[in-house]
């Protein structure tokens, strides 16, 4: 059969499919005008006001907890998870570590939906986006799941509590303080961050910028710029290189991300500027040990991701056991970590970041 001949007499309008597109456009334009300023919606509000906490209650056993990291295959969350699993074991509960292999909000939504379908009691979440996860978190909470964020928060209305590694101000202040100490209080400083979207890093960078502008101690420090290594080793490496070329008189680099500081240290250690350009930031002792020993890095900081995971488990279990509700001022005991108080907006803070240098780095293994 010949397709060609049978088609010969048929009038074809090539634009016909595109008519669908136009129809789409028309269908979407309704009357009215909803703009950013005309927002009328009020927050759905916290729904736990009717719950009453019983500070003397014990942790319930048999709770099921799921930890959802930003992405699996990340050593940092792996450390959190190992510690968390131990605590869950002690409390006699079930533990699951699951999540997407790419760190995007939309794939995290699928996993939130999945664990809430599975009837998990507590979700421990490090969020890839402060807002994109809210609707699915609300659905999970409506079904009775306790949502505790750690490491990276979501909008305060969408979760029961947030376990913060440290408060943003303390991190930012520690970072700029370490840099200032290492360059003698004056000079040019640049920042090598993670992705440009990263919630944490941007909050800390804001604090650093504010400190440089307002704190008289840092009056002689100038911020040359922020580069983004996307938390990829290779990219961070190249961006370090770019920073040094763009700013020949650079005195220090602050890298508030574990991937960035390791890549920058590796670059500096094999370059002519080793020891001339100070490097500080947030890194893990195991990754940075070599560079502290060879003199590339003097001092850096971080919290213990394992302790962060433990505290997240205790916080989640405490809420699920009704020891706390997540309201400001409540206290609970988190095993060996000691007693914690819930702060404003349901934030539980682990503590100030630990600083690592040649003297103490060998005491840590993570």
């Amino acid at each position, binding site marked *: 059969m*010949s*397709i*060609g*001949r*049978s*088609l*010969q007499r048929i*009038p*074809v*309008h*090539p*634009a*016909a*499919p*595109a008519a*669908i*597109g136009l129809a*789409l*456009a*028309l*269908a*979407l*334009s*309704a009357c*009215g*005008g*909803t*703009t*950013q*300023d*005309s*927002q009328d*919606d009020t927050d759905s509000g916290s729904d736990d006001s009717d719950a009453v906490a019983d500070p003397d209650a014990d942790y319930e056993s048999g709770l099921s907890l799921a930890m959802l990291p930003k992405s*699996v*295959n990340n050593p940092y969350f792996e450390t959190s998870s190992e510690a968390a699993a131990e605590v869950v074991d002690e409390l006699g509960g079930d533990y*699951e570590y*699951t*999540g997407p*292999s790419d760190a995007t*909000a*939309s794939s995290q*939504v*699928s*996993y939130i*939906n*999945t664990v809430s*379908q*599975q009837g998990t009691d507590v979700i421990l979440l490090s969020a890839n*986006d*402060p*807002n*994109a996860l*809210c*609707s699915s978190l609300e*659905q999970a909470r409506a079904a009775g799941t306790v949502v505790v964020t750690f490491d990276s928060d979501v909008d305060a209305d969408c979760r029961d509590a947030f376990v913060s590694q440290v408060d943003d101000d303390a991190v930012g202040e520690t970072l700029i303080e370490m840099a200032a100490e290492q360059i003698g209080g004056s000079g040019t400083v640049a920042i090598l961050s993670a*992705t*440009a*979207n990263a919630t944490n890093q*941007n909050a800390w960078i804001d604090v650093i910028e504010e400190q440089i502008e307002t704190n008289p101690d840092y009056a002689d420090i100038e911020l040359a710029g922020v580069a*983004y290594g996307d938390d990829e080793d290779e990219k961070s490496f190249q961006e370090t290189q770019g920073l040094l070329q763009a700013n020949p008189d650079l005195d220090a680099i602050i890298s508030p991300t574990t991937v960035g500081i390791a890549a920058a240290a590796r670059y500096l250690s094999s370059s002519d500027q080793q020891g001339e350009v100070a490097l500080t930031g947030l890194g893990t002792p195991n990754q940075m040990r070599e560079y502290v020993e060879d003199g590339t890095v003097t001092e850096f900081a971080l919290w213990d991701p394992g302790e962060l995971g433990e505290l997240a488990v205790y916080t989640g279990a405490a809420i699920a056991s009704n020891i706390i509700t997540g309201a400001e001022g409540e206290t609970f005991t988190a095993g060996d970590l000691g007693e914690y108080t819930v702060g404003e907006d349901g934030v539980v803070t682990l503590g100030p970041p630990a600083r690592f240098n040649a003297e103490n780095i060998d005491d840590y293994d993570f």
Partner: protein
Amino acid sequence: MSVEAGRQGRDGLHLSRFATWDVAIIVVTVVFLIFAVTSVQHFGTSQNATFLVLELAPILLLALPMTLIIVTGEIDLSVASTVGLTSSAMGVMWNSGVPLETIMPLCVVIGAVLGAVNGFFVTALGLPSLAVTIGTLALYRGLAFVLLGDTAVADFPRSHSSWTIGTIGETPIPNVLVPMIVLAGLFAAVLHAMPVGRAIFASGSNRVAAAFAGIPVAKLKFWLYVTSGAVAGLVGVFWTLRFSSARADNAHGLELTVVAAVLLGGVSIFGGKGTLPGVLAGVVLLSSLQNALRLANVSSEALTVVTGSLLIISVLAPNILGRVRGVLRRRLRRTHVPAPNP
């Protein structure tokens, strides 16, 4: 020339082969759904069905125009980047105070323009669509980041974003299912019941013959790219509202899932063959398989491998089936048969 001739010569075989594949994939999908409902815990709940529909909505919408494009023998790898760029644009416009009712159709228009750029390069300059759309995949995603950079726009009105994830009344039927069905019906009608559809098949199975038959192949392809862009723009709006977050990295990497679903649905990557019901089954199968695997606590690494393998198998299986059938037929007839093509 000889490729075209060869392909035409095998038409009969192809048609029956793919018709079977279509039916097979629909049957497999149904069987899998029944299996999952009965043996995967939590899969059969109405809430999970809602989640599933929301999850597959963007894939299904993008698969509709993608099917038409692949049937004409071309491809559009830039769809996910178009989603990202329209999402970024939506955030920028919202931030500058443009009302949502203007933004939404504008986003569809932006998507259509981006699609027209693809269409221009492919049809007016005659460039290979694979190379062009790999290029615009990078270009559009890059522009999305240039537009919105490190910020996410998240303060869209709750009423709109809750509609996208809401259900009709008390039923578990998601609101978005209605436009999905309407659009799927429209595209199915265009492909299978309208003259344009036949022209699409003709330009994919034998371009030269189609041109001789007076079909404006280039124009047709151009408008298909425009359509693909427009639908991607619509998905950009849906994605932004569904996650109430306009970000440059929205829908990153989704093009691969869409292509995988379309090919799984029995559309030939060489063009000329495929049906929309098959594609719908492909989308449902891919999404529900991933959903079920997640519920069964299978790791995301395995999901990555499953998606990749399905993509290869979806092309490999009909090829092998076809060859087996060819051998059988030869044995049965033992008469003269045309030599197999490369």
